[in-house]
C-alpha cells in the first residue's frame, strides 16, 4: 500500500476509502479561477472516443488549483461532518453539450474525489453516510474552489457515486457497507438503525440482502477487482490501493458520461411526459405534434447511440463502462424512455384514428341526410304528378263534354260523356306527366358514391418497399389550368376546416376506350406534411356499383401520381408502380 506524505506509519491494518461523486450543476461555473493543466486534459479527455468527444464537445473546464492534500486539510479544519481521516480532496469540472443542443443546453458536471484513510477499527468513522455527509462535503469543497461567488446549487438527483475500498485491513463486507451507506436514502438508513441492527450478525446480511434483492445479478468482477453495483452507485474492492488508484481516470470519464447521459435521458423523459399531458388535454392532433415526435425520436436515436455505444477506445474503460451502465441503471433508464416514446406515438396514432373515424361518421351522416332529402323530394314530385294530371284531365274533360262530341255521336247523356272522357284522359295525362318528370329528374337522382380513407404513411408496396404519400395542392391547381394532362380537372371548392383541407373537383379521364367522369373530394392534413386523409368519388347522373367506383378511385389516384399531385416519398421514382401504390393507399374494407 502507498504511504502518504504527512501520514505517519501506524500499527494495525489500514483501510483506504475513495469516494468519487459526480453531480450535474444547476447553471454553469465561473472557471476563471480554475487550473487547466494540459496533462489533466490529456489524462481525462483522452479516454473519450473521438466521435463522442466531438459530438458532445466534451470539455474539462478546470480543476481545483489547490493541491488535494491542501484542500483536504482545509475541509478538515472547517469541521464539516464526515471529514475524519480525509487525506485528499479533488474537484474537477466538465462540460458536456447535448448532441443537438447549443451552449445553453450544456450540462456542467462537478466531480469530487475524496480519499479517506485510517485504521480498520475506525472504518465506521471513515465511511461517509448518505447525502447528509457527502453533499455538505461537496458543497464545502466547491465553496473553497470557486471562492466568493458561492457554489451553484445541485439538483436533487442525477448524481453518480463510486466508492472504492482498499487496504490490508479492508474486506468485501466493508465494501458492501461503505457502498450502500454512501448512496442510502433516509428510509434505508432508518431500516439500518432499527433496534438490533447495530449488531454485525443482523446488519451485514441485511446490507447484502439489499444488494441481492435489488441487483441480484449485478455483482461482477473486473479482473482481480470486485465490483458491486446498485442504482447510481458502484463499489470497487481490492486489497491493494495502488491497483484501485489506477482505475481513477477511467472512473472519472465513466462518471461524467453517466451523469450527462442520465441528465439528457431525464430531460427527454420529462418532455415526453409534458407532451403526453398536452395531447390528452386537447381534442385534436395537429401536424405540429408529428413534427415534435420526429424531433424527440431523432434525439432519442442520438442518445441511444451514445448510451449503447463504446465510450472509449480503451478496453478497460469500455468494459467498466458497460458493467456500470447496466448495473447502475443507465441502460434500464434508456429502455424506459424508449418505451415511453413508443406509448406516446401509439397515443397520437390512436387519437388520429379517432379523429378520422369522427370525420367518417360526419360524412356518412351527411350522405344519409342527402339521401333522405332526395327521397322526400321524389315522393313530393310523384304527388305533384298525380295532382297535375287530375287537375288537367278534369278541365279538358269538362271542356270536351261542353262540346258534346260523344253525346251527338253515341247518343249518351253529358254526365256519362264526362265520365268517359275522364276515364281516358286521367290515366293518359298521369302517364305522360310521370314520363316527363322521370326524363328530367331520374338522372339527377341516380348516383354512385364511395367514401374511403386513404393510407398515406408506411405504405408497403411490392417492388418499392415502404413509401409515404403527400398531396401537392399547387400541382392540382396547375393541372386544372392545363388541358394536356392525363386528367381534365375543374376545381369546385377548396375548404380548410381546422387541420383538415378538402378540395372538391370534377375529374375526367380515359381508361382504354372508356371515358370516366367523376366528382371527387380529396381531404388531406392542412399544415406541415400534407398527408391524404380520405377521398370521396361520385359518379354523376348514373348509378354505379362499388367495385366499379373502387376501380375508378385506383385509376384516379394513379393518374394523380403521374401528374405529380400525389407525391411519393421514400423512393426515387414510382414510374410503372402507380397502380400498386394506389392499391396500397386504398385499404380493403368490407
Amino acid at each position, binding site marked *: 500500500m502507498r504511504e502518504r506524505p504527512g501520514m505517519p506509519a501506524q500499527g494495525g491494518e489500514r483501510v483506504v476509502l475513495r469516494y468519487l461523486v459526480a453531480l450535474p450543476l444547476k447553471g454553469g461555473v465561473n472557471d476563471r479561477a480554475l487550473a487547466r493543466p494540459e496533462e489533466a486534459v490529456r489524462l481525462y479527455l483522452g479516454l473519450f472516443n473521438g466521435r463522442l468527444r466531438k459530438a458532445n464537445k466534451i470539455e474539462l473546464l478546470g480543476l481545483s488549483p489547490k493541491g488535494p492534500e491542501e484542500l483536504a486539510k482545509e475541509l478538515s479544519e472547517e469541521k464539516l461532518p464526515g471529514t475524519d481521516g480525509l487525506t485528499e480532496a479533488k474537484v474537477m469540472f466538465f462540460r458536456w453539450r447535448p448532441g443537438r443542443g447549443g451552449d445553453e443546453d450544456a450540462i456542467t458536471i462537478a466531480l469530487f474525489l475524496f480519499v479517506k484513510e485510517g485504521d480498520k477499527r475506525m472504518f465506521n*468513522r471513515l465511511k461517509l453516510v448518505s447525502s447528509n455527509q457527502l453533499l455538505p462535503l461537496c458543497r464545502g469543497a466547491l465553496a473553497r474552489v470557486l471562492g466568493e461567488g458561492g457554489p451553484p446549487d445541485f439538483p436533487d438527483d442525477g448524481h453518480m457515486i463510486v466508492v472504492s475500498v482498499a487496504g490490508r485491513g479492508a474486506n468485501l463486507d466493508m465494501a458492501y457497507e461503505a457502498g450502500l451507506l454512501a448512496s442510502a436514502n433516509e428510509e434505508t438508513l432508518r431500516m439500518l*438503525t*432499527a*433496534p*438490533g*441492527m*447495530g449488531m454485525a450478525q443482523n446488519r451485514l446480511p441485511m446490507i447484502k440482502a439489499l444488494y441481492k434483492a435489488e441487483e441480484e445479478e449485478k455483482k461482477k468482477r473486473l479482473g482481480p477487482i470486485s465490483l458491486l453495483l446498485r442504482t447510481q452507485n458502484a463499489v470497487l474492492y481490492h486489497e491493494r490501493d495502488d491497483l484501485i488508484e489506477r482505475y481513477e481516470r477511467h472512473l472519472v470519464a465513466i462518471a461524467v458520461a453517466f451523469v450527462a447521459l442520465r441528465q439528457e435521458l431525464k430531460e427527454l423523459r420529462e418532455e415526453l411526459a409534458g407532451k403526453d399531458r398536452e395531447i390528452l388535454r386537447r381534442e385534436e392532433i395537429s401536424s405540429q405534434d408529428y413534427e415534435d415526435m420526429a424531433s424527440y425520436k431523432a434525439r432519442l436515436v442520438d442518445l441511444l447511440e451514445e448510451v449503447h455505444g463504446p465510450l472509449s477506445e480503451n478496453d478497460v474503460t469500455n468494459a467498466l463502462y458497460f458493467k456500470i451502465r447496466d448495473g447502475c441503471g443507465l441502460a434500464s433508464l434508456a429502455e424506459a424512455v424508449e418505451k415511453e416514446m413508443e406509448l406516446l406515438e401509439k397515443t397520437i396514432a390512436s387519437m388520429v384514428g379517432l379523429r378520422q373515424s369522427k370525420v367518417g361518421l360526419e360524412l356518412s351522416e351527411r350522405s344519409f341526410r342527402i339521401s333522405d332529402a332526395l327521397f322526400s323530394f321524389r315522393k313530393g314530385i310523384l304527388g305533384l304528378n298525380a295532382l297535375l294530371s287530375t287537375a288537367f284531365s278534369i278541365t279538358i274533360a269538362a271542356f270536351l263534354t261542353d262540346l258534346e262530341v260523344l253525346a251527338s255521336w253515341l247518343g249518351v247523356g253529358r254526365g256519362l260523356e264526362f265520365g268517359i272522357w275522364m276515364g281516358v284522359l286521367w290515366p293518359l295525362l298521369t302517364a305522360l306527366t310521370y314520363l316527363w318528370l322521370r326524363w328530367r329528374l331520374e338522372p339527377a337522382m341516380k348516383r354512385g358514391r364511395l367514401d374511403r380513407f386513404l393510407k398515406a404513411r408506411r405504405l408497403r408496396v411490392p417492388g418499392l418497399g415502404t413509401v409515404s404519400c403527400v398531396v401537392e395542392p399547387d400541382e392540382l391547381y396547375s393541372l386544372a389550368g392545363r388541358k394536356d394532362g392525363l386528367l381534365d380537372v375543374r376545381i369546385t371548392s377548396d375548404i380548410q376546416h381546422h387541420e383538415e383541407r378538402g378540395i372538391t373537383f370534377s375529374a375526367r379521364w380515359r381508361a382504354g376506350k372508356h371515358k370516366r367522369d367523376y366528382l371527387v373530394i380529396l381531404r388531406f392534413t392542412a399544415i406541415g406534411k400534407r398527408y391524404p386523409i380520405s377521398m370521396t368519388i361520385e359518379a354523376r347522373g348514373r348509378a354505379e356499383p362499388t367495385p366499379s367506383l373502387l376501380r375508378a378511385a385506383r385509376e384516379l389516384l394513379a393518374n394523380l401520381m403521374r401528374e405529380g399531385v400525389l407525391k411519393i416519398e421514400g423512393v426515387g421514382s414510382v414510374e410503372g408502380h402507380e397502380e400498386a401504390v394506389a392499391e396500397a393507399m386504398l385499404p380493403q374494407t368490407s
Partner: protein
Amino acid sequence: MGTPVADEDIRALLSHYLDRVAKESRVSGFGPKEAEQLKEAMREVEMTDGEREWLGRLVERKKALSGLTLDLARVKNVVLRPADIHAHLEAYMGRVLAKCPDIPVNAGELCVAMVDVMIEEGIIRA
C-alpha cells in the same frame, strides 16, 4: 417563544437518546460504554446559536408532549421534521465525537438513529 431552553436540558435530552440508541444496539460499535463517553464529552462542547435554537425546540416539544397540561396550541405550532434537526444535530455530535477519537462511530449514522428514536417518540414528524 417561551423562555429560552437551558443547555443542560438539551444535553439531558440528547443523553436520553444516546442511551436508547446504545441500549437497543442501533448503531454498530456503539454500546453503553461509548454512550457514557459521549455524554461526558458533551459537557465540554458548546453549542452554536443555531444548534441551540433547533435542539431547544426538541426540548420544548418533548416537554409539551410529556407535560400534564395539554398545551395543544403550542405543540401544534412546533412541528419538527428530520431535515430541520439532522444537520444541526450532526454538526454538534460531530464535534462531540471529535473529542473522543477512539469511538468507532459515524456521526451521520448515530444521528440517523437518534432522529429515528425521536420519530418513534413522536417529537419529530417523519
